[in-house]
């Protein structure tokens, strides 16, 4: 038995992982969500702003991280839309721009009362990473003369009076790496005191915690925090709970639970094999 376990084909592990992820997805299993204080910090940063506040949303991620970050990006969009905040979208990653389009689609389909140019606007991707941030903290038009539709910022109601992003009430950054939250903290949040919150991948989250609470008003780390954020929105705005698209992160917690459980079982099993082998002088 020990020998079989020691030499188990790794394709069995792949199969178990496939089942661990597939079964909860197919069974549509949803588990309860406990909202953590960290998530409430992010929720309150948006919720406590007066309706119609100016919020800059930078989507610094691409399709590779879409599974982990898109649900929280969409939740940010829904929360801002419900509150009637003015949403300014941009991206520091070339493939972040199509991610913004998905949020724009959400606004157009779920909040038809919101008007492009009055309630939300999109700036196209510009190369330069942190240099883009540095520039728009001083001069927005130095980087974006036009919006993504080719309209001059001076002719758009919600941008004509904006000089730079110091006029924003909040920055929301959804980040999968560099340039991302770290650069927003270094070049916008810290030097100019602009309140900033971040939604980032699980790998990045530990690096962001030291910035809380002064340089970042809160961090959502990975899909778990996104699920908690969705639950927080549901609690305050029960009407959104009936929208299945607004429950995407919660739905993804099912596969995460089973997959993490499997990982822990595999680690325990691997260590049992290791200790028994060592005892028998086989390791």
């Amino acid at each position: 038995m020990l020998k079989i376990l020691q030499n188990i084909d790794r394709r069995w592990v792949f199969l178990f992982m496939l089942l661990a992820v597939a079964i909860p997805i197919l069974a549509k299993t949803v588990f309860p969500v406990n909202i953590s204080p960290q998530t409430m910090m992010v929720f309150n940063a948006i919720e406590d702003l007066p309706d119609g506040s100016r919020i800059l949303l930078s989507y610094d991620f691409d399709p590779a991280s879409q599974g982990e970050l898109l649900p929280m990006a969409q939740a940010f969009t829904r929360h801002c839309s419900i509150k009637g905040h003015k949403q300014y979208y941009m991206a520091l990653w070339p493939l972040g721009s199509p991610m913004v389009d998905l949020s724009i689609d959400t606004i157009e389909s779920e909040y038809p009362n919101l008007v492009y140019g009055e309630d939300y606007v999109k700036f196209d991707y510009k190369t330069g990473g942190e240099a883009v941030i540095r520039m728009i903290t001083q001069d927005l038009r130095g980087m974006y003369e036009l919006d993504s539709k080719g309209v001059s910022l001076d002719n758009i109601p919600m941008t004509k009076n904006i000089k730079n992003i110091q006029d924003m009430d909040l920055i929301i950054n959804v980040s999968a790496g560099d340039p991302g939250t770290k650069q927003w903290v270094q070049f916008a949040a810290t030097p100019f005191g602009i309140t900033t919150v971040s939604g980032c991948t699980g790998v990045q989250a530990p690096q962001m915690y030291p910035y809380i609470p002064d340089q970042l008003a809160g961090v959502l780390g990975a899909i778990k925090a996104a699920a908690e954020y969705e639950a927080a929105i549901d609690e305050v705005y029960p009407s959104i709970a009936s929208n299945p698209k607004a429950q995407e992160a919660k739905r993804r917690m099912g596969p995460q639970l089973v997959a993490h459980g499997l990982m822990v079982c595999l680690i325990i099993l691997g260590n049992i094999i290791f200790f028994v082998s060592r005892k028998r002088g086989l390791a």
Partner: protein
Amino acid sequence: MKRTVPLIIAIVAGFVLLIANFIPFAEDWGLTAQEWFNILAVGAMILGGGNLVKLHLMKISGQRKGWGYSVVTIGCFVGTLIFGLFKIGVHPNEIYPNVGWSGYYLEGGSGLWWIYQHMIVPLTSMMFAMLAFYVATAAFRAFRAKNTEATLLLVTAGVVLLGQTYAGVWLFEGWLPESMQWLRFDHLTEWVMNIPNTGGTRAITIGIALGVVATSLRILLGVDRSYLGQD
């Protein structure tokens, strides 16, 4: 000359950005330098593209091992470039209907949109999703409690893995007394992230920052010239 001019450019640009950060009078210099940087960044993208083509063409012409992959790379690169640059399948912008190529480059149904939607999205998502399988098999084969440090890491990983799901709550539901609720895995995960992780990351970040200051000073003063290359 080949080394002196780039050295002077680097030193002057570095000092301008440094001064612009601390002296309000020089703030505009910093903005100008950043505008230059953005223009250069576009140039760097062209240079990067050119370099990619050159390297793979050399590989193909020499028929070196794996040259077939280079053909695929060049084909995809050129194809995407043509679809994106010439905006094939993109309609003119509604505001400027008579201006060619004025439409949105990723307009639904266009060539680049098709490449993005049906090639880039599934391929990059697949690469990320495959991590789950590799991490699982690595955890099974390599994550061993060989010594005290490894055991500590292993226990912490187990707690955080379960704390990141509802299992962290569910495992303790109904039997753990109120005074011991801090032992729940979700609470322990929060503690791990907020206290040891934050402390450790802060220390590393400050260390890195000091290292960056030292390296930057060496570059600004012309002591470190390794970034200029060898010839």
